């Protein structure tokens, strides 16, 4: 991920900081993201047909198996999101470019959405299958801890401190996500677990026919949704970064202008304004 802007503001950027609405398309969409969005919606419709209508009920779990077509892909893309965050965090620590930092935060936020879906659908699937919404099983507990780690990571990114230090601290925490994902994924083998083992990651998958097709369509649909969200949220994160930078540039320019005016000679009125609290906080020295 390479930054697409220099850290030094240009004259045109400063001049354009106060652009009126409507100067260029005011959204995060592009032709590619629109195509991606249409494909995602189409695959979601196909998933609904396969998952709710065309695929058969399971012999043991009956219709509750239909939750699998969301639960398993959501969990897989939760892992993918954590992997992206860890890689982007490592790249931020190495390169210090804002694009990597934005990607790490973006991916973690989307991962949290998928973690909520994984835990929610898992709970709803557990009630008819295991007789309970929640149990302190190894897989469930590890997933809850991963979710807590994601919440902590995002909370750290919102601390009101120096942006670079904040990103570095968050990146260090971001490095822990992939090890946690490995623990979540392997938990059903390392400890005795109520949760079933992997359905697909073996040469002889335990499902077949329309159920397997429905699950594959689930992976496709959830994957497209994940990618669409990642593209748009990354652009929002990039806009947040640019907006913060432009605000800082504008504040610095204002302070410099104020200092220059002060250098030419203070008027009694200006001193009065400052004393009355009407000037800028921490006014520039003369």
């Amino acid at each position, binding site marked *: 991920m390479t930054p697409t802007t220099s850290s030094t503001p240009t004259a045109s950027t400063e001049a354009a900081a106060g652009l009126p609405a409507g100067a260029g*398309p*005011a959204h995060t969409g592009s032709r590619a993201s629109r195509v991606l969005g249409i494909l995602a919606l189409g695959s979601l419709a196909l998933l609904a047909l396969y998952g709710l209508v065309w695929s058969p009920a399971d012999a043991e779990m009956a219709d509750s198996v239909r939750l699998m077509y969301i639960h398993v892909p959501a969990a897989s893309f939760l892992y993918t999101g954590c992997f992206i965050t860890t890689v982007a965090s490592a790249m931020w620590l190495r390169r210090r470019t804002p694009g990597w930092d934005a990607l790490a935060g973006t991916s973690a936020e989307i991962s949290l959405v998928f973690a909520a879906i994984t835990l929610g659908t898992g709970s709803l699937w557990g009630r*008819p299958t295991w007789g309970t919404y929640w149990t302190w099983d190894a897989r469930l507990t590890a997933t809850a801890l991963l979710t807590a780690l994601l919440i902590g990571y995002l909370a750290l990114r919102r601390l009101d401190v120096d942006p670079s230090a904040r990103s570095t601290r968050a990146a260090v925490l971001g490095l822990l996500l992939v090890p946690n994902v490995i623990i979540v994924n392997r938990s059903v083998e390392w400890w005795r677990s109520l949760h079933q083992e992997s359905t697909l990651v073996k040469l002889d998958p335990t499902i077949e026919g329309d159920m397997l097709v429905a699950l594959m369509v689930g992976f496709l649909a959830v994957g497209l949704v994940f990618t669409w969200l990642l593209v748009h949220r990354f652009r929002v994160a990039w806009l947040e970064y640019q907006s913060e930078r432009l605000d800082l540039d504008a504040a610095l320019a204002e302070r410099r202008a104020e200092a220059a005016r002060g250098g030419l000679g203070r008027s009694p009125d200006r001193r009065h304004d400052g004393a009355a609290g009407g000037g800028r906080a921490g006014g520039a020295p003369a």
Partner: protein
Amino acid sequence: MAMTHAFYVAAGWGGAAALVSAYAVWVLRRGRALSRQVPPEERRWS
């Protein structure tokens, strides 16, 4: 034939759809709001 466990299936699918939709709408709205504050040359995708 009626679906068994219909409540759980509907809650799972409906909840997931609602959560993703709400998040997508929030992302799009925030993107629109921020795009108005940033000059076009910084919006490389447009």
